[in-house]
């Protein structure tokens, strides 16, 4: 997204502070409060002992009188949570790398080799991006079962690319398009092969695009739910989202402390990654919509 390269400053300086407070800061503050409150509530519940959690008369529910780690230790040592975390990492990393590899090749071929029919293939891949997992999971379950992949990490590693590849390819096509043809022509004259051009010229120049696609793909696979819920049945093979809501609820007994601890600790890795790459993440998100 090209930001406007304009030296004008607007007429903001004409506005007094109290007026701007009412017009901008107050509504902005309220919306941010609405957006952040669930996270605050998640964190407060995680570190609150059970006695306080269910007693709103004696303790103020918004504060913690005696912070405790009991829910987190219970989650890490009494459940399969560490295994779910491990599965989630393995599945997200592998499916992201598979998708990036396939997408870089495909996007380069569509944008730069321009073989016969490449435009139509590009369009078909964009349409693939619009097919939602909720209409694919039933037939996919049948296929996964036939291939003998049911209840294993491989079932997820191979199916996640179905929503990652269309997205990454579409995003990378946009990035490759911005690289001048002349650079490739120079390399061709110097005797470079197509593969050398891709790895030594196109990829380094579109590195921000590759990082954006990778970060976004990683968070998408970390967050995926419906395939993981359908294709995995035993507790030790589950991912965090699935494990949290299927294994931490015993009948009508909800272990809110452990549930909130799982929600919090399952979100933290993505949030840390996101905080390092905010700009890349945003450009992936807006880029995919804009193209």
């Amino acid at each position: 997204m090209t930001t406007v390269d304009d030296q004008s400053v607007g007429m903001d300086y004409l506005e007094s502070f109290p007026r701007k407070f009412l017009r901008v800061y107050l509504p902005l503050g309220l919306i941010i409060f609405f957006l952040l409150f669930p996270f605050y509530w998640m964190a407060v519940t995680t570190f609150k002992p059970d006695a306080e959690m269910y007693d709103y008369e004696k303790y103020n529910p918004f504060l913690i009188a005696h912070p405790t780690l009991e829910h987190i230790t219970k989650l890490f040592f009494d459940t399969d949570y560490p295994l779910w975390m491990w599965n989630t990492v393995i599945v997200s990393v592998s499916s992201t790398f598979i998708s990036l590899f396939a997408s870089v090749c495909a996007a380069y071929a569509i944008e730069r080799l321009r073989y016969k029919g490449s435009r139509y293939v590009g369009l078909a891949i964009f349409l693939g991006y619009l097919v939602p997992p909720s209409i694919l999971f039933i037939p996919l379950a049948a296929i996964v079962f036939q291939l003998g992949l049911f209840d294993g990490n491989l079932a997820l590693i191979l199916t996640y690319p179905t929503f990652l590849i269309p997205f990454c390819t579409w995003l990378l096509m946009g990035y490759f398009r911005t690289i001048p043809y002349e650079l490739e022509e120079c390399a061709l004259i110097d005797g470079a092969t197509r593969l050398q051009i891709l790895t030594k010229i196109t990829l380094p120049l579109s590195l921000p695009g590759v990082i954006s696609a990778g970060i976004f793909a990683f968070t998408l696979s970390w967050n995926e739910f419906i395939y993981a819920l359908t294709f995995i049945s035993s507790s030790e093979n589950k991912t965090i989202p699935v494990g949290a809501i299927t294994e931490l609820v015993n009948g009508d007994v909800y272990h809110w402390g452990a549930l909130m601890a799982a929600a919090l600790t399952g979100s933290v890795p993505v949030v840390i990654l996101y905080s390092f790459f905010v700009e890349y993440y945003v450009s992936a998100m807006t880029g995919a919509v804009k193209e």
Partner: protein
Amino acid sequence: MAVIAEPVAADVKRGSLWSRAFESRHFLGAMFMVPAIAILILFLAYPLALGFWLGMTDTKIGGVGRYIGFANFVSLSKDSVFWLSVFNTIFYTVFASIVKFAIGLYLALLLNERLPFKSMVRAIVLLPFVVPTVLSAIAFWWIYDSQFSIISWVLIKAGLLTHYIDFLGDPWNARWSVVLANIWRGVPFVAITLLAGLQTISPSLYEAANLDGATNLQRFRHITLPMLSPIIAVVMTFSVLMTFTDFQLIYTITRGGPINATHLMATLSFQRAITGGNLGEGAAISNAMIPFLVAAILLSFFGLQRSRWQQGGRD
């Protein structure tokens, strides 16, 4: 240097069919497409086709189905739970999308103002979209608890209520509760993408309008909205698509209850196909979603066309 030059020279001398094929961009292009196309055909195109077929069979989990034509659709058309789920899906999509658009556009306009710590505020706003939906939905589930809901507690303390709200036990309360959770998750996406659109509008347009004596409302109506409309079309299509096919929020917060009052078509198809074992019937419910999706995609297509036209390209 000589080491690098050698293989090239050898290639030229050999000049075999194989090396010439690698210089053809059509052949090379096809080779480059193999990994992506293989995965997409096996796990996207084939399942899509298989889904149409399954919807016309009486397949059960672990068994082979018979072709039964449109019998699944006929029985669904007499199934009141199915029609309830269609109603819920449309209700959920319409209300959540309208509010997401309104708050999202408002938030985008606020974020486009001159703000201190602007990039940090933007990063924080996007958090609900980044965090795994299921995990934040668990937090909403706890917020909506019938005995320990923090919302009820605050309202009672403020003297606005006398007893706790039964958020998820009453059909209409449950519907509005899941809509609210969906709005919470969707607003950041709408706001940040619209903000990216707003940032491409030149401030000089607003200055010119100011000099001509335009009011705030007029500037919004005659500059912001027309300049933003192509991206609004695309963002809202995506948003509608995601909301219409939503599964995670409902499955986590209500599992379709109370008495199917919040079942969406996606959660109902999961319940029939995976929990109940009737793959054929579940696939038929999924297939019933496709006409709506095609409508949304067409909308997106025409939105893109319009944006090209507005940028001065061909129609």
